[in-house]
């Protein structure tokens, strides 16, 4: 890894350097397009755009700490039918990167001709929070520096607060913060393609001895995140254990299926729960009600969540999109993260960790789950 490029440069130039990198890549024809967030006209949010004209790079807001749509979902849309024929650079957060890896394994995205640029991620705000921060005149970008400085921000999305995967691994270039002082940012190439791309950046200096400093900082960062995650899990577990608690925590669910719509892993053409399988004749409803004297309607509210969990939690990257999308603030991302984490751990799998690890559902291991199934 150390054979690849490690560069550092002053922190105030972060946006400028990334923009320069992307612009140079476009101008020099290394890439034909760039996918990265731009500020929306209202200024209250940011969304990805595909830029092919170098002049428009200036409009980017590459590090806006908000995720309106998962970049993984966008990449799936762009590459599922046909892989990119021209090279495109993509700036995305580590959770989006992991979701992209997962979707690639699920044959819903294709990494061909993509230059993946990810970043040390301090977390993001929900769309609502980001908008109100902007409207109140606060600079959400300013909050990030404090986060890297070690402060907790209760406004951050809860899954981000306890995110132990906020350092990217499977990309070509990392925009690095860990291991550098408050006044510096870095660019690290992880692949040959990344090296080649970083070659276009003019300024910046070699980041000598960066690896050790970075490892120490990442370890410390992750420890804190894991501690937070475990505290979140402990608290949540109480609240969701047993069917009664589960019904209680999902009581606010209005069956809108927003969580499924925004989930990058939910790739089905048509969700099973939106299908005709759940259409029944009137007598069935009367039968069900008759058995208990009463029946919650619609019938498939909790079943939808449990079913979705069953289908995708082995690939859940805990990006938190679902919770942002919930109109009634059901802690759906936290629940899915906890279940996903525990299921994946059991099979020594981490969603999005590696392209070489086959998705769990395709695997059969003779020796597993002895404590449940016995010998």
């Amino acid at each position, binding site marked *: 890894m150390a054979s690849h490029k490690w560069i550092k440069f002053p922190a105030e130039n972060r946006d400028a350097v990334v923009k320069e990198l992307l612009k140079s890549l476009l101008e020099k024809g290394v890439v034909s397009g760039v996918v990265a967030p731009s500020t929306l006209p209202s200024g209250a949010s940011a969304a990805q755009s595909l830029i092919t004209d170098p002049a428009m790079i200036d409009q980017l807001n590459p590090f806006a700490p908000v995720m309106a749509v998962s970049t993984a979902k966008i990449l799936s849309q762009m590459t599922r039918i046909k892989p990119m024929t021209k090279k495109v650079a993509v700036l995305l957060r580590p959770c989006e990167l992991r979701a992209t890896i997962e979707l690639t394994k*699920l*044959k*819903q995205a294709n990494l061909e001709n993509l230059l993946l640029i990810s970043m040390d991620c301090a977390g993001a705000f929900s769309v609502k929070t980001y908008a109100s921060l902007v409207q109140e005149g606060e600079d959400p970008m300013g909050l990030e520096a404090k986060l890297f400085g070690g402060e907790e921000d209760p406004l951050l999305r809860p899954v981000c607060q306890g995110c132990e995967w906020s350092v990217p691994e499977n990309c070509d270039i990392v925009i690095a913060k860990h291991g550098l002082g408050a006044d510096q940012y870095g660019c690290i190439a992880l692949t040959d393609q990344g090296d080649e791309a970083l070659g276009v950046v003019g300024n910046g200096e070699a980041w000598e001895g960066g690896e050790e400093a970075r490892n120490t900082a990442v370890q410390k960062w992750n420890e804190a995140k894991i501690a937070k995650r475990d505290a979140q899990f402990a608290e949540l577990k109480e609240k969701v254990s047993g069917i009664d608690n589960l019904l209680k925590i999902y009581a606010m669910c209005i069956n809108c299926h927003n969580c499924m719509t925004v989930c990058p892993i939910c*790739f*089905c*053409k*048509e*969700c*099973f729960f939106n*299908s005709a*399988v759940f259409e029944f004749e009137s007598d*069935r409803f009367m*039968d*069900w009600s*008759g*058995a208990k004297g009463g029946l919650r309607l619609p019938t498939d509210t909790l079943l939808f969540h449990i079913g979705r969990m069953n*289908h*995708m939690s082995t690939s859940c990257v805990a990006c938190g999109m679902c919770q942002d999308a919930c109109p009634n603030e059901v802690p759906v991302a936290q629940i899915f993260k906890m279940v996903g984490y525990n299921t994946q751990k059991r099979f020594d799998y981490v969603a999005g960790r590696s392209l070489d690890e*086959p*998705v769990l*559902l*395709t*695997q*059969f291991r003779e020796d597993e789950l002895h404590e449940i199934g016995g010998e």
Partner: protein
Amino acid sequence: MASNRVLVVGSGVSGWAAALNLASSGVHVSLIEQAPFLGGTLAQIERQFPTNRCLMCTMLPVTERVEAGEFCLRRDFYHPLIDVHLQTTLKKVEGEAGKFTVSLETAPRYVNEEACTACGKCEEVCPVETPDPFNGNLSTRKAIYTRVPSGIPHAYCIDADACTRCGRCVDACPTQAVDLNQTPESWELEVASVVVAAGFDLFDATQLMQYGWGRYPDVLTSLQLERLLSETGPTGGVWTRQATGDAVKKLAFIQCVGSRDLNHPYCSSACCMIALKEAMFVKEKNPDIETTLYYMDLRDFGKGYHRYREKAAEMGVRFVASRVPDVKYNPRTRALMIRYIGEDGDVTEEAVDQVILSVGQSPSDRSGTLAGLLGLERDEGGYLMPTGLNTTATKREGVYLCGSVREPKDIPDAICEGEAAAAQALRWAEGPVVEAEKAPAPNVALEPPKVGVFLCQCGGEVSGRLDLSVLAKELQEREDVAFVDEVEYLCLKNTGPQLVKRVKESGVNRVVFAACAPYRYERLFRDIMKEAGLPENFMDIPCIREQVAWVHEADREAAGRKAGAMVRAAVGRLTGEIAKSHATYPVTGKMLVIGGGVAGLTASQALASQGVAVDLVEIGETLGGNFKDTHYLLGGSDPQSLLDELIQAVQSSEHIRVLTQSRVVSREGSLGRFVVDIQTPEETLKEVYGGIIIATGAKEREVAEYGYGQHPGVVTMREFGERLSDPSMPAPEHVVMIQCVGSREGDHPYCSRFCCSRALAHAMEVKQRWPESQVTVLFRDIMTYGNRERAYTEAREMGIHFFRYTLESKPVVETGGDRCTIRFTDPVLKGSVSLTPDFIVLSNGAEPDDTGGVGEIFGLETTPDGFFGEAEVKFRPVDAPEGGIWLCGLALGPKNVNEVMVQAEAAAARALTVLRKQSFQLPHVKAWVSPRRCSACEMCVPACPYSARAKDEDLGYVVVREALCQGCGVCTTVCPNNAVKLISYQENQIFSMIDRMALG
């Protein structure tokens, strides 16, 4: 006209393989078994090495599998073309191949199998307790008994020797099935050919008094330990010292009991591995138990076996190369005393708690009789003799031998032989059997569901334990249920016509038979459906006896609730049933064989001899493969004339097209219709085949050890064979052979299997040609399994010297001088020996070779050693995991040439099961994909255990390879999108089942 029936003698694994293969090829089979139950020795064995699983059921056909029943083969078995005759022996064979008349005798069972419902009332009243041989006589059973592995009952029988004729069982039987007046029945049959798979007898350990079996309770046979460790065994898996009931702390296995001695001049081939397996089970139970194998040579020559041995060693199993002259008992310490003579000749004594005798295979006591009535000869060990090592044929045309009746062997070899014998036997039979055109069943899926329900009382076995009338009343109220009948016995022969009549008259279009043992009665109920003019799959068999009445005996109410839920669920599933009956799948009648070595040549010839068109593709310029370099074989046959004959036969066959310097470049399609591109020197051919045999061989392992390449005196075994084949070769003074060069260690942790035999053949050739020459063989374990053991004995008698070396003290070769010097340790002299031979010959073994890349083209799996993997290493030894592809020869792993030839014939036999009939019936339960819903995530592709799914790149979604789909439903559980549907178990049916179970 020739008969379309084949007689198979013996229902052990080899006979079973032969019978199943013949039946799948469309021939009637009469399978006779001397014992009252099927399955030979295997029924007693729960787990097999090296998988530590049973997996016997994987032998069942993969096409038209529903016809053959789908359940545990250790419980029962049926196939519409196989007539099973238990307690039946062969008495006479007259006539000639194609038209034999065989005389048979069936001994009385004293229980009418068709009437027996296995309720067990007879067993309760029987006053006789007699030792149970199924459990190695470690437990008792009654004189009227059934064999109950895994707790599923089969029809009873009476042990005539133990029975006192008291008649209590006759009175107790509710179906009048017991008949003490039965007499032996003689009958005749016309058959086209005979396959003899009469198996072996386990060596009787009382013959070796010195080990104290039968005298000391803690001297047991390996089969007894197998039963003691089994949860279906005499003690439910509780294993202790037999004398005291204490835990066993020290356990000893003595190998070669009844094998490899003066009276038994053969190796039993499987006992080393059986002992390893049992030793590992013991270690699994308690790692602190000291477990030692006292062995002469540890013969781990099979596929994956050396790795298995390494695992045993890792688990702490101790190996002592030694001979054990006797076992004594110390009454003071109550320990068994083992004396063993080590490699160094020293005698050591060790106290142990239990001794396991690894008793070998002995020639069956029937083999003498069989030899007499078939006019066959027996070898000096007592085994029946085929006409050659490479064949299952005997000197009597139309009579074939397979399995341990001709030589002791392990399961995969026995199965290959069974299949090879089937291919031979098939040649004489008419056929294939074509089922009479029957009127298509009406498409009742479109009619409103009208379900008839039969509830079996089982003569009180069910009705006495739960209230069927409550269940009947409740069911009757359902609008889709037309009738609910309680019947005393659904299974009895005379009940059938009444059921048919009831179904017909009531006008129902779906039927629930709430009964027992679906595996046993499925065929019966399907026949009733057919006779009643309904599609046979529009019925269900909830098992309300074993799964309800018997297990919930204590709680009548709960039993009633559960039976209700099961029957209602069955009704629910059937109301949504839409599946049509079986469709026919066409098969292209042409085969592709890849590889022109002995395996490919033999397979091609075997196929061509049955009139199948074959394309034989060979990447090299000439046919013959590695065998071209073989000049000497054990037993003296001439390899090169054998090969010439084979090549001649292939080249002159009108059915075979030989394509040399050609390779397969791509493949599409699957079983029944593979579309394959073949690159020949001139052009690219696009051909269509029904199936493919892959026989791409292996290559010689490259050597760097022992000074090879540095001195002309150091040669490989192949090179030495070439020198020997030169008649002008001068007499060598001394030849030293080193076995296991780079094998069974490091990155080649497997035995190459042929090297020891080849070394012996070369050593004996030297000794025969130049009696004055010295030959020394340095070995780790000599792998002369089966009858090869005789050659080993002979070689020693000829004065060839054998010294064991270990991995820790390998021989050392110095190439400095005019002649090489080799130094090794003589374990007896306990000192270093230094020799300066003319030749140091290295047995360098084989390693995988897939030059043509067929592994990738055909999506084959490879073992950790790099050879191609079969569907199941024990029970499907030549089937690739994907149906329609068969494997044979060294591509599967190293082996001797006779095994290669048998395996190639087995592969051809497997292919004939599909090609001979030119079509087969698809099962009605199978998956299909909704293109609208499929997101092409392809998770179902690797999840499918039968390679029955593939993405169609043109269509953009996953399609089902119909011919391969087994309807297991794994795809439906993997698909998140409900794009996969399993016919007969579609989501509306499943939901309906759940609803009816939950709501009542």
